[in-house]
């Protein structure tokens, strides 16, 4: 059943060459206790006419029966972020984005919608792979590199967070998807949802409502296996983090170098509210009000090294002065 007189809801599915599993996602949309006004499928792949197969033919009739308008858009293959951006600006009040390899339990949209009060920008369910849940995430941006996603575990309760993943219901037309990303669209949900958060909207994860993720080895973003695309997107994400006021620091060096760095840390803390410090010896920084993460979690995103810096700059002063210059702080 749709909402009468309430906000309009669009369900958006971006798909690429997953015609075999897409029907599960469509069936789950049809089976919702609260149905969207419209389902739009963005086909980034082979542009097959799905009406020609029996399964799809039935599903499209079922959508008609459920009074869910539907549309298949043959999109240009630039990636799901471009498709979600189209959905974002289609004139609906709310958009429920669902991946093509996901199956939502019947109460997902109704539950997500129940949280969508004034001031809430987006609401997400748990998105779990049957047989593979990972607990311990916070979905705070400072934890993004080293903790599991909060949405990867079910039945943990309801949380206010800073970013979301995969499937969620969001307030449309408030912020835009980042179209700088490559076709793999790595971190696209993170960037989009954090921009909503930055606009002052609350983001909620209700892990008691579940979408099952039947993760596919092929199709979708896994059509692209070029590592550099991910690196490109990680670079875009890093740029955004810096714009959002995060200072990324990577200390992949010895214990003594950590102590040398600690001479400039108080000034860095003074100048930056939000610091993500990846290091090898967190115990060095125990007395500072700063959270550290394992260096391996950040060094790919932020591959800096004081030794590389000193080599490049033909440095002949002290290492403490090098850190000071490198991080732009006065000693």
């Amino acid at each position, binding site marked *: 059943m749709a909402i009468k007189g309430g906000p309009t809801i669009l369900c958006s599915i971006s798909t690429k060459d997953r015609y075999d599993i897409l029907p599960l996602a469509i069936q789950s949309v049809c089976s919702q206790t609260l149905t969207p006004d419209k389902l739009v499928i963005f086909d980034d792949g082979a542009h097959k006419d799905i009406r020609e197969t029996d399964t799809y033919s039935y599903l499209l009739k079922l959508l008609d029966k459920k009074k869910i308008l539907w549309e298949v858009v043959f999109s240009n293959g630039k990636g799901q972020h471009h498709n979600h951006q189209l959905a974002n600006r289609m004139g609906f009040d709310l958009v429920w984005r669902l991946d093509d390899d996901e199956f939502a339990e019947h109460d997902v949209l109704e539950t997500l919608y129940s949280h969508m009060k004034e001031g809430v920008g987006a609401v997400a369910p748990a998105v779990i792979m049957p047989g593979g849940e990972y607990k311990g995430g916070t979905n705070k941006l400072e934890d993004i590199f080293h903790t599991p996603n909060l949405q990867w575990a079910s039945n943990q309760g309801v949380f206010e967070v800073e970013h979301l993943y995969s499937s969620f219901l969001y307030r449309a037309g408030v912020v835009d998807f980042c179209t700088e990303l490559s076709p793999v669209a790595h971190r696209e949900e993170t960037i989009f949802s954090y921009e909503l958060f930055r606009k002052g909207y609350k983001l909620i994860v209700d892990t008691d409502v579940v979408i099952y993720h039947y993760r596919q080895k092929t199709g979708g973003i896994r059509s692209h296996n070029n590592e550099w695309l991910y690196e490109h997107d990680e670079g875009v994400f890093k740029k955004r983090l810096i714009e959002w006021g995060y200072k990324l620091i990577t200390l992949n060096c010895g*214990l003594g170098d950590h102590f040398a760095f600690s001479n400039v840390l108080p000034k860095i803390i003074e100048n930056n509210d939000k610091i993500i410090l990846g290091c090898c010896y967190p115990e*060095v920084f125990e007395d500072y009000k700063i959270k550290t993460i394992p260096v391996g979690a950040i060094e790919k995103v932020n591959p800096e090294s004081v030794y590389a810096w000193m080599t490049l700059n033909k440095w002949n002063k002290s290492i403490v002065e090098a850190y000071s210059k490198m991080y732009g702080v006065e000693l």
Partner: protein
Amino acid sequence: MIVLSPYSKQLRTKKENPKNYPYWKELVDKLGKFNTIVQIGVKDEVVLVPECRFNMPLKEISAIINLCDFWVSVDNFLPHLANKLGKKGVVLWSISDPKIFGYKQNVNILKDRSYLRERQFEIWEQAEYNIDAFVSPTVVVERLKIEGLIK
């Protein structure tokens, strides 16, 4: 009490770290006449004195450094930690540059700048051990006398 931190981190090649002082035994014999020596380090390092404390947490190392009269080390983590604590010590250098990796308040004993390696920032596995780059124990003791650390 003198705290001794005699070795730098073991290299991945298992070869001798070019920063490791070659005459510790002789130096310890000489320094032991003046003061009690406590060696700190990590398990499996060569034991030089009866009182050895291996694998100590950083907080305990800081505590013992604060308590000691002075400390002696090679170019390893200890000078950096001691700098944070404001505790003066002695560093025995060889091919790394005290102007880059050292602290002015310490007694930095370098035989000669001509022994410094050309590329100061390369990984240590690329550097050769050069025994000639180190000062003798006699020179160390004389210097400590001049500095007033021992009588």
